[in-house]
């Protein structure tokens, strides 16, 4: 692997960092260490190469947004919109993540080792999300595809107006949102969850989780409800 390149955010701007990351093309893995993050927005956004990026410090809004192929690790907390619209690769946060983590994500894996706040996985479209702690209210709102795994508790209105994503929760759930219901945990689901927990480096028994998904009553037209429209 190529030697590690170090970027100091007390000496360089976010734009310089992102330009450098965009310039690191090619299929060979390359390593970048970013130090002195102090809540700066839009760090490591739009990467399109198999980079290993380690960010030290807390990050601001939209960190690792639109990520493709890269593994981005934040040694700190992340603000609003972590890994928004992630396409592939892995984004891992060692601390907590604020609202709308992994929003609209289409692929890849997002791991939050602390808690995630409101609207985690809002409108997710294929991303896998594993939260070691709890998630806030309205998580997986209008989720369309992908999996959200919550090892702790889930806040109010989990999975409100959900389409086809799968939700797994180990702790307590404040309440389920509209059209979200508990589903049977089949051996296939248990095996798939075990694999996902392994990928996320979580040492928990898949048997301790409950599965939730769409009741499919909200988005199919029902002729009996025609008068309501």
């Amino acid at each position, binding site marked *: 692997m190529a030697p590690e390149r170090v970027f100091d955010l007390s000496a360089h701007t976010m734009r310089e960092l992102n330009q450098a990351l965009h310039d690191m093309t090619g299929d060979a893995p390359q390593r970048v260490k970013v130090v002195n993050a102090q809540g700066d927005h839009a760090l490591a956004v739009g990467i399109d190469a198999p980079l290993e990026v380690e960010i030290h410090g807390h990050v601001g809004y939209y960190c690792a947004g639109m990520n493709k192929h890269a593994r981005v690790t934040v040694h700190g907390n992340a603000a609003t919109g972590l890994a928004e619209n992630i396409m592939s690769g892995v984004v891992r946060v060692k601390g907590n993540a604020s*609202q709308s983590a992994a929003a609209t994500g289409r692929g890849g894996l997002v791991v939050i080792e602390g808690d995630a706040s409101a609207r985690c996985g809002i409108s997710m479209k294929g991303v896998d999300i594993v939260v070691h702690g709890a998630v806030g209210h309205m998580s997986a709102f209008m989720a369309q595809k992908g999996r959200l795994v919550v090892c702790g508790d889930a806040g109010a209105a989990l999975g409100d107006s959900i389409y086809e994503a799968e939700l797994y929760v180990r702790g307590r759930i*404040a309440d389920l949102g509209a059209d979200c219901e508990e589903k049977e945990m089949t051996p296939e689901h248990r095996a798939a969850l075990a694999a996902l927990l392994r990928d996320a480096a979580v040492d928990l028994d898949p048997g301790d989780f409950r599965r939730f998904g769409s009741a499919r009553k909200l988005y199919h037209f029902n002729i009996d409800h025609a008068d309501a429209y």
Partner: protein
Amino acid sequence: MCGIVGLFLKNRALEPRLGELFQPMLLEMTQRGPDSTGFAIYRDPVPAGSVKLVLQHPSPEFDWSHVAALLTDAFKADVDHRRVHTHCLLTLAAPEAAVRRYLGEHLPRVAIVSAGRHIEIYKEVGLPIEVAEAFDLKSMRGSHAIGHTRMATESAVTTAGSHPFSTGSDLCLVHNGSLSNHNRLRRKLQKAGAVFSSENDTEVAAQYFDVQMRQGASLEQALRNALADLDGFYTFTVGTSDGFAVLRDPIACKPAVMAETDDWVAMASEYRAIASLPGVEGARLWEPEPATVYVWEGAGATGTLSGSGPLAKAG
């Protein structure tokens, strides 16, 4: 958008450095609110029975000694006054309510920016750096401060429309968000005796808290009642004579982060505004819960919180 910041010093040895610690927090929020800036600073309390006022007049050349002379004559009291950029800091031994009434009747173009025993509010149209330097924020000492950088949405960019808003004694409010039922609530509060000085939605919330507390509610109760009566988006920070409080609406779209060490408690719209504080690397950091009241008050300043939780049907 808008940015809000608050800093409460638990360690009194830091009080001489309040302005120096607080100014970078305010400046860091420039992108969130570049059109107007304001801050409330709590310091140098006047004795019981006296009142400290910050006044403002549309004309920068306004003769403040004329106001001091009128007040001296009306209240038979010594009046100290000092011009601070476009504002005037004025103290006298007289009841606050009577002074407010007198100014309203005799000098209607003079705005009362703040009144109380501890509070001083300074606010102006302009970038945070311009406003902070014009009022020499950096050199101010004090126990706690609350600030706001404004990106106007609901009303005009004017000094009167800038935050913080202060309606009650030593009480002030800053707000990130927008209220949707402010017109109806304003009419209700006017019937309850509130007098408004702007078309601003946040002034309605400030008047609401003032009316609530004059009717006997504690700060915490007033904030909890707001969950039922105020419709819209908000992260509020409220300053009091000896502390501050934070409240987010049940949907909690407007950001807030808090941090606490043995020396201070801070809140801000974003972490980067807190990042410059001494000892931040060891601070307890958290995001305030929706529909939950956080209050720090008094010398010990241990946080208390109460709330009905996110998405709760308040009422």
